[in-house]
């Protein structure tokens, strides 16, 4: 079954100058999809539009078959779409526990404490000091908290915008290890990532966006070390590159 369906999506900040141009992607349940592309290709705008944070001007978005095109971000979160922004993805003035408590509001009351405890156990760095302000966490720990927050309500689909941005290589490894665990639990993952190798090693499938349009769609393993990817990043089209 299709977990997330994007059909002919047009999105951006100005209807006359769309950034995302008629992009169509079907993501089956449990798949890990990497969205790759050069800077300015519209990757972040695409997933932010899917998550209800950027206006859409055409096309449709379906979550488990349900039309959610243009729905506001909070409604999409309640409908089961988890989204982790690239930066400023935790409330720095709130404690770790408070960040999780806000996310837990999406769950039935009896389940909340148990899920928060489960997340704190899953991420020991967070569980060791749950009352600390999120602003005191390192970059990697913030990404962990952001992932824990998104996972707390057990969303069927989780979208991440450059989860390794700004992190040291060691922390990048930790973040991808965490994402692998999440994927093994059957969560459908969609991630935009500049660290192409790490993304392709994690993903089942990758799409390449160039200038707001879908330029290539292939199994991730086919793209590892493939010079086609480099040519696409330099602005070529798939047929030219091949």
């Amino acid at each position, binding site marked *: 079954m299709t977990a997330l369906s994007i059909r002919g999506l047009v999105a951006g900040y100005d209807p006359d100058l769309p950034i995302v141009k008629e992009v169509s992607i079907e993501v089956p349940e449990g798949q890990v999809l990497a969205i790759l592309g050069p800077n300015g290709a519209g990757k972040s705008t695409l997933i932010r539009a899917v998550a*209800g944070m950027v206006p859409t001007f055409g096309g449709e978005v379906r979550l488990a078959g349900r039309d959610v095109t243009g729905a506001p971000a*909070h409604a999409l979160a309640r409908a089961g779409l988890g989204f982790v922004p690239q930066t400023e993805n935790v*409330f720095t*003035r709130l404690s770790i526990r408070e960040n999780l408590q806000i996310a837990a509001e999406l769950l039935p009351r009896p389940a909340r404490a148990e899920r928060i405890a489960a997340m704190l156990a899953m991420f020991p760095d967070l569980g060791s000091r749950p009352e600390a302000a999120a602003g005191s966490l390192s970059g990697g720990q913030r990404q962990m908290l952001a992932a824990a*927050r998104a996972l707390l309500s057990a969303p069927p689909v989780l979208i991440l915008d450059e989860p390794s941005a700004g992190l040291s290589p060691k922390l990048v490894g930790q973040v991808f290890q965490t994402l692998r665990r999440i994927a093994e639990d059957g969560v459908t993952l969609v991630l935009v990532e500049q660290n192409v190798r790490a993304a392709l090693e994690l993903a089942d499938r990758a799409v390449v966006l160039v200038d707001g349009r879908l330029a290539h769609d292939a199994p991730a393993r086919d793209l590892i070390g493939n010079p086609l990817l480099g040519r696409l990043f330099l602005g070529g089209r798939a047929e030219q590159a091949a």
Partner: protein
Amino acid sequence: MTLQILVNGLVAGTTIGLGAIGLSLTYSILRFANFTQGDLIAWGAYLTLAVAGAIGGLLAGLGPAGPLAPFSFGWTLPVALLGGMALTVLLALGLDAVLFARLRARGADAIILVMAGFGASMALRAGLEFIFTSAPAYFTRELQIARPLGAGMRATPDQLLVLGLTAALVVALHLLVTRTATGRAMRAVGESPALAAVYGLDVAGVVRITWVIGASLACVAGTMSGLLVQIRPTMGFDLLLPLFAATILGGIGSIPGAMIGGLVIGLSESLAVQVLGAEWRAAAAFVVLVVVLLVRPSGLFGRGA
């Protein structure tokens, strides 16, 4: 100079502090300086007065309702205050729906919202004068004798009630913001409305709650001020500078800070009246505001810039 300045300052500071809490909340969550907060205080007082009058009219056949000893007012005032709060909340929500929400939806800059608020403030004030005239009005004409508190200080029962009610409200609000899901949501939206939406919070709902709290406090502040002094259409406008001074002194978004800021401004005004003369009252708030902006722009309890 006597310690009576302390009592006078604290009593004046309660109105400023409660109004400043509302201003601070709207500033931290809606991210603009809401010039209508002062006029919501005035409207709150008049709406409470109108509800009290309506209750009095309905119960006229039962004979006059005497004051609740030792206070100067009868039981109708607390009941009318609840009605006044509800009506002030409706006024604030209506103002937001008609004006501010539309501007926010269009992505208006903070300065546009401030200017819109300034215009709305004038309209609200003119509306009060049109409906109630500019003649002062009173909740009660009972004469209260101030009672000795010790150390040369005196206060009327009404003044002590106002101080007690204010303290209770501040504690309740502080607990609401720091210990409840509603408070967490308000702090989250105050930090980042976009991220709050990603977390699944209904930002528009949190904005409504902020208006409800701000308008309720404005009504209580206006009613308290009206009870202790008098009600005038310009009473809120006259409070604007002290409200902003208290909000900035306490630190934007801090409830205890806004209250303490209000009390400091009230004490400063009281001291200025005693030492320099009544004409210097307004200057006290201005001086405090300038000093805070120069020395600690983030305020006493504010987060650093």
